């Protein structure tokens, strides 16, 4: 796009505010007039994993200082409601009769000040009759104790039950010369946006205004409508600045969905803000998949059959995590490889743990980790280099849709080019030579090299469309309204760049509005790496349309034929071709259309399909074989997201994704004891990755535009996570191959590494 601002490194318009006075997050809205006199809600949470509730006594709670009201499910008239993804599972927003995970809500306490709520809930008495805690996935699968009795089983969803083909077992591998098997745990992690959740609810003349830290205001509106049993026009959702989401803030939670009812009952505005310790058990978790893989092929290295049996932990509720395995992991099971026979079966199982939701990558990191680890086991088994074995099996470059064996259709791909680029920057052969030297010398600190090649799916959740509106005001400024919902991704800058590249209005003169359902009633929010390819494409579409509209009006003002009028984007003015001295500005044209409202265009961009970003990551780590300590030395990432709008924010997304992937590979795991007590419920116990555990990241650019949208853009929000996780995990294991270690589950902590070395050498 010669001459266009698109593709240039443009600094973010949103930054000065964040850097000087800080963002305006939900807890910072002290000047909001509607919050005057607001009361605070604090929740009494279950302290046991699985139990019948014998008695709730809130009398002491009620008499605590500052307490205005206390509510149980009964007090609020709550009823159990069916889960979206399995109607046989039913629960209410405050527990009725039973609790199913530590942290589930039991009662609400309303106080004058927030700190009084924290004191008051200490006085709540809840008597439990403890039931068998089901924490282990496979134990829960076969248990006769059912977490949701209505389901008649703890299995709440499965591909076979939905009519998809079952796995055929070892029969699939009967012609293979080499077969490897693995059992991998893709562990449970906590998303940990740095801003925990918060919300506020205010009734004004029978209409509910709710502020919430979310990724999708329009989706939340539908949930609030349902929870309060009111019409959609009676609800307004407002999104303040949001301090990170990573998938976990897509849907509203019980804590937030109760606020409307509570505000109505107490007749005052109410606010709720969770502590980090609450957030660690209240905000949904991610991953939590147990994988059985089998992969077979020839001794020369050609893979011919792959089978994945994934068991997805749903946690204590049938939430989004339940559907990620069948609808995200399964379709991407085959990855980047040309394999003759591929099978994948998934089973989602409830346990007495925090529910699983979407977390950066949401089902695709699991698919990639499974096949990438399997490829490494295969390479080790036949004694070949893992990069070489991958190269032998990659789907060749394609620019027309490619249908995979599992039944997905990828848009464009050039996987071997991505691998080549990453290997070149990594100086792969030199790294292998250094590794060989260290092995030969028997160094205490060994070098490990991990390779992963991946493809993922972005913008693939129905409806694959996004809404945008552009308004050029009589003062010449433009306002872009978007149904996406930035919380760090930089849409204010990128959407302004897109509108500017079509209209010639400078990005300084373009504002971006989102997240208020009165201003933007239609929108799909920001999730699944969809924003640029659908939201950005919608902004481009309406920007082109408003230029056409302005050209018609300019022709009238210039008394010229419309086809003779051109837009000089460098100045943002329209003139007759060849006569630039007489022109009409956006301001003049907008004022001529409507002296107050200016010009407006709105519309929907509809994508015909998802897009399939791909790439290759190489991680080089040092592993101290005596202590198990890992040093992540280099991380090379070649991620192809199609055409790039702003390389500044593109790189930022890649860096952040890699940090979260590395965190899962090396450090992070949300853990429970055998009774279902969470034991990593704050940032002192949960090993949130810091700057010390990461290297600077070597980003290798590659652009293969997609034909799915006019921008040529694919998603980039999750690629880094998907590519990095198996690369880092494999690097750790690669360092230990000569010691006989073939696999270590994530996180590859020093303890696990040390144990694996001890076991292998025993």
């Amino acid at each position: 796009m010669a001459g266009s601002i698109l593709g240039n490194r443009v600094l973010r318009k949103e930054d000065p505010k964040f850097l000087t006075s800080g963002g305006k997050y939900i807890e910072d809205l002290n000047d909001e007039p509607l919050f005057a006199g607001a009361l605070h809600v604090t929740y009494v949470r279950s302290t046991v994993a699985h139990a019948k509730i014998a008695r709730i006594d809130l009398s002491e709670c009620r008499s605590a200082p500052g307490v205005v009201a206390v509510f149980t499910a009964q007090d609020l008239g709550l009823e159990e409601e069916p889960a979206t993804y399995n109607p046989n599972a039913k629960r209410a927003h405050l527990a009725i009769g039973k609790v199913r995970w530590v942290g589930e809500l039991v009662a609400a306490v309303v106080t004058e000040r927030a700190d009084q709520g924290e004191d008051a809930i200490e006085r709540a008495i809840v008597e439990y009759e403890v039931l068998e805690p089901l924490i282990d996935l496979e134990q829960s699968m076969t248990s006769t104790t059912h977490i949701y009795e209505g389901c008649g089983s703890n299995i709440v969803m499965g591909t076979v039950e939905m009519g998809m083909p079952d796995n055929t077992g070892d029969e699939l591998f009967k012609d293979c010369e080499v077969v490897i098997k693995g059992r991998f745990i893709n562990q449970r992690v906590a998303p940990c946006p740095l801003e925990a959740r918060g919300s506020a609810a205010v009734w004004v003349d029978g209409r509910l205004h709710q502020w919430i830290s979310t990724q999708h205001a329009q989706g939340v509106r539908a949930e609030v409508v349902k929870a309060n049993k009111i019409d959609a026009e009676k609800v307004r959702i407002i999104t303040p600045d949001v301090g990170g989401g990573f998938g976990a803030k897509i849907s509203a939670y019980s804590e937030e969905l109760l606020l409307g009812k509570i505000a109505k009952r107490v007749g005052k505005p109410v606010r709720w803000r969770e502590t980090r310790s609450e957030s660690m058990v209240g905000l949904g978790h991610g991953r939590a998949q147990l994988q059985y893989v089998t992969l077979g092929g020839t001794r020369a290295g050609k893979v011919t059959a792959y089978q994945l049996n994934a068991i997805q932990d749903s946690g204590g509720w049938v939430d989004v995590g339940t559907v990620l395995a069948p609808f995200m992991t399964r379709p991407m099971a085959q990855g980047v490889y040309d394999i003759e026979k591929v099978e994948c079966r998934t089973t989602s199982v409830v346990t007495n743990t925090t529910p699983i939701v979407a977390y950066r990558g949401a089902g695709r990191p699991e698919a990639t980790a499974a096949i990438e680890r399997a490829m490494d086991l295969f390479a080790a088994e036949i004694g070949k280099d893992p990069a070489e074995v991958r190269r032998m099996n990659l789907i060749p470059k394609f620019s027309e849709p490619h249908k995979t064996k599992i039944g997905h259709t990828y848009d464009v791909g050039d996987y071997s080019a991505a691998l080549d680029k990453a290997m070149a920057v990594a100086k792969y052969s030199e790294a292998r030579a250094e590794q060989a030297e260290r092995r030969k010398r028997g160094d205490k600190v060994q070098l490990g090299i991990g390779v992963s090649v991946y493809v993922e799916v972005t913008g693939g959740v129905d409806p694959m469309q996004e809404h945008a509106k552009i308004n050029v005001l009589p003062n010449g400024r433009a306002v872009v309204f978007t149904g996406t919902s930035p919380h760090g991704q930089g849409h204010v800058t990128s959407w302004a760049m897109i509108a500017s590249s079509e209209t010639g209005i400078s990005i300084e003169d373009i504002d971006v509005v989102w997240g208020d359902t009165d201003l933007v009633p239609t929108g799909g929010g920001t999730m699944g790496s969809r924003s640029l390819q659908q939201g950005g494409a919608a902004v481009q579409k309406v920007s082109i349309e408003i230029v056409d509209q302005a050209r018609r009006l300019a022709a009238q003002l210039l008394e010229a034929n419309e086809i003779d009028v051109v837009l000089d984007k460098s100045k943002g003015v329209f003139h007759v071709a060849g006569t630039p001295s007489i022109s009409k500005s956006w301001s003049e044209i907008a004022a001529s259309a409507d002296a107050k409202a200016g010009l407006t265009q709105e519309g929907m961009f509809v994508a015909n399909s998802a897009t399939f970003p791909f790439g290759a990551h190489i991680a080089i780590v040092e592993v101290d074989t005596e202590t198990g300590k890992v040093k992540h030395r280099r991380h090379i990432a070649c991620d192809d997201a199609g055409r790039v709008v702003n390389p500044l924010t593109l790189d930022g997304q890649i860096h952040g994704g890699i940090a979260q992937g590395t965190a899962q590979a090396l450090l992070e795991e949300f853990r429970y004891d055998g009774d279902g007590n969470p034991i990593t419920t704050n940032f002192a116990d949960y090993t949130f990755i810091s700057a010390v555990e990461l290297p600077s990241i070597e980003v290798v650019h590659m652009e293969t535009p997609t034909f799915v949208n006019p921008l040529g853009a694919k998603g980039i929000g999750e690629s880094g996570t998907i590519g990095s996780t198996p690369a880092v995990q494999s690097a750790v294991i690669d360092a230990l191959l000569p010691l006989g270690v073939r696999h270590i589950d994530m996180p590859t902590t020093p303890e696990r590494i040390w144990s694996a070395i001890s076991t292998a050498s025993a």
Partner: protein
Amino acid sequence: MKVSITVNGKEHHGDVEPRTLLVHYIREVLGLTGTNVGCDSSSCGACTIHMNGEAVKSCTILAVQADGSNVTTIEGLAKDGVMHPMQTAFMENHGLQCGYCTPGMVMAAVGLLNENPKPTEEQVRVGLEGNLCRCTGYHNIVKSVLAAAGSK
């Protein structure tokens, strides 16, 4: 208890509960909401401010302990509408995304350079270990600090 604390050059007199944390005093009493709270175990550093010139986590200090001290928050870092070089470096190097850790991160980074004006990359990483960020992978934060130090 009576406290007198100078914040961003202005002296404030207040009457606080003994258990009031400095961060709550700054946010709720003074209304300076740039300083954020990201955890409840003094792990994340989102609340980092300067007290008598030193970067400290304001969730780890009681308001009464800050009596008589000189506090600078993110709101006091820019002078006469001109951003501090560290703020400029964060902007130019995309050292922030969602912005939640940013005020604390910037204050910690300024504190780091006060102690070590020309740090190596490794020293920056170690120096910022107590400040968590979930968005940037720290890459551009480290780059920002090195840029502000003129190291790169």
